[in-house]
């Protein structure tokens, strides 16, 4: 069994976990100081039923004395927990959401679990876990213009396939990994699960330390593989040769260079979610949209991941750039990424999204198509009304 430093759930996974915890005959959580609940999936409430889930999440949190982030005070769970200092290198986070692997960006073992697993974590503070193998992913060289963390992880998933890292963790190393900002590391780690991995770790370094400074005062020590560690596999991605990529419908592993998808007409662009809704993504979006307009045949939705990011983007004038371009700016929410609300797709529609999954029906209709890409590519598609290389829209 593995001890949890933090247990997290949301308005979808939480209420089901609470019921399971009751069935386990446990009335109080193992440690209220280590439990966080976030209303983000159907928040702001999509309908009466979603409102009820969020009400229960809040009431349960109050009753148990655990931290609760309501709408307007938090944002998308994974970006939020990093921002709020819940995550330290070397810590273990059990999250009732598959993208809990995002915390690997800060050198933590964050891993996604179902609600019954979360119930046991809430009750006893531990989950069952075999020691995973490690796949070493080395990023070498320098990122090219219009290439972001999104492309690095799409390249990895394209190589490994959507089940290639099952029972393994990814460890990201190399000069190309060290050069990434925390925002870009979040984008990379977030999609580790899309290759089947349990988490995607960046060994903590000075970049991590600088990010955590002022966010947490809990002590931590960086973890990394021993020099003589055995790796299940080693993968090298040469950044000098990597251009912007796109994952075609309906698997995140259907990865091609953007050139292979150009000309595809697009009905909606969605920029946001737990992988790519950071200030870095919003600045990239603004670089493309500033002084330009969203194509009349296309609509664009921008979703800052957290309230803090929303506010920072407002101060920087980015929200004004988006609105001026004809994009909708949404309050932080998981929203349409999982087909919940706030921008789902109709039959026959095509979207470019900076999100992490393009499964059939993921963002709405089963007859819709989702193309995954970075914020530059997404914003350029919004301007052109079709998939283009960002260099065709902006220099």
């Amino acid at each position, binding site marked *: 069994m593995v001890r949890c430093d933090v247990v997290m759930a949301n308005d979808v996974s939480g209420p*089901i976990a609470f019921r399971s915890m009751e069935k386990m005959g446990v009335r109080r959580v193992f440690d209220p100081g280590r439990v966080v609940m976030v209303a983000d999936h159907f928040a702001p409430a999509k309908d009466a039923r979603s409102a009820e889930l969020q009400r229960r999440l809040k009431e349960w949190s109050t009753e148990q004395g655990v931290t609760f982030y309501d709408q307007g005070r938090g944002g998308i769970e994974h970006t939020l927990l990093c921002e709020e200092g819940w995550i330290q290198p070397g810590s273990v986070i059990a999250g009732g959401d598959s993208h809990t692997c995002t915390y690997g960006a800060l050198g933590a073992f964050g891993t996604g679990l179902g609600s019954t697993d979360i119930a046991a974590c809430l009750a006893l503070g531990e989950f069952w876990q075999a020691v995973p193998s490690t796949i070493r992913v080395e990023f070498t060289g320098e990122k090219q213009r219009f290439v972001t963390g999104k492309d690095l992880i799409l390249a990895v998933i394209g190589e490994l396939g*959507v089940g290639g890292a099952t029972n393994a963790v990814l460890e990201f190393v190399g000069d190309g990994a060290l050069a990434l900002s925390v925002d870009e590391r979040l984008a990379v780690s977030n999609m580790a699960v899309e290759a089947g991995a349990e988490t995607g770790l960046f060994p903590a370094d000075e970049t991590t330390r600088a990010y955590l400074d002022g966010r947490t005062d809990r002590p931590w020590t960086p973890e990394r593989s021993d020099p003589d560690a055995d790796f299940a596999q080693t993968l090298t991605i040469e950044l000098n040769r990597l251009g912007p990529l796109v994952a075609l419908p309906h698997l995140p592993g259907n990865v091609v260079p953007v050139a292979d998808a150009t000309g595809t007409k697009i009905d909606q662009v969605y920029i946001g979610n737990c992988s790519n809704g950071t200030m870095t993504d919003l600045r990239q979006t603004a670089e493309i949209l500033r002084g330009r307009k969203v194509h009349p045949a296309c609509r664009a939705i921008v979703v800052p991941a957290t309230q803090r990011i929303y506010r920072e983007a407002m101060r920087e004038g980015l929200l004004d750039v988006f609105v001026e371009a004809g994009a909708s700016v949404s309050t932080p929410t998981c929203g349409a990424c999982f087909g919940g609300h706030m921008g789902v797709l109709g039959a026959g529609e095509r979207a470019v999204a900076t999100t992490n999954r393009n*499964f059939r029906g993921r963002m709405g209709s089963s007859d819709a198509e989702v193309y995954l890409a970075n914020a530059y590519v997404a914003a350029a598609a919004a301007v052109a009304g079709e998939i283009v290389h960002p260099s065709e829209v902006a220099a």
Partner: protein
Amino acid sequence: MIVDGVAVVIPGDDVDTDVMYPGSYLNVEDPEEMKQYLFDGYDPSLRDRLGPDAVLVTGRNFGLGSSREHVVQALRAWGVPAVVGKSFARIFRRNCVNLGLAIFEAPEAADAARPGSTIRIDTDAGELEVDGRSFPIPPVAELVAQLQAAGGLVPWTKERALDRS
């Protein structure tokens, strides 16, 4: 444990949790209601074949994607006793173990099964039969075996919690 059933084959590899249980129904809490949405984005007619004698047979990396437990809760609500597949995504497999749905990673058996094949699983004997052909059941980790023997993570944790109090 002995399971006697008929194969309901889910064709293809990489069948994800979104097609099995679309996100728009994630605000449903009652497993009886979840039943109605199972396989909605894949092939809703599969629901007609689910029941206490239906053994789900899957391809590789079945259940990739979301941690949503709704898929397994709905399978249980239909009374499905077991899943036999070539391989499973991690969280899906955990959810099956945790909720007491028998799950077997048995690639040859999954390959041999056709829709309607007769399936017999005898865990004590360590055997899995497809249309009378016998296949070995690969061993699982001891802790997983304990969880399965206890009927899932809820009864197992209940006992541990009692021991600690």
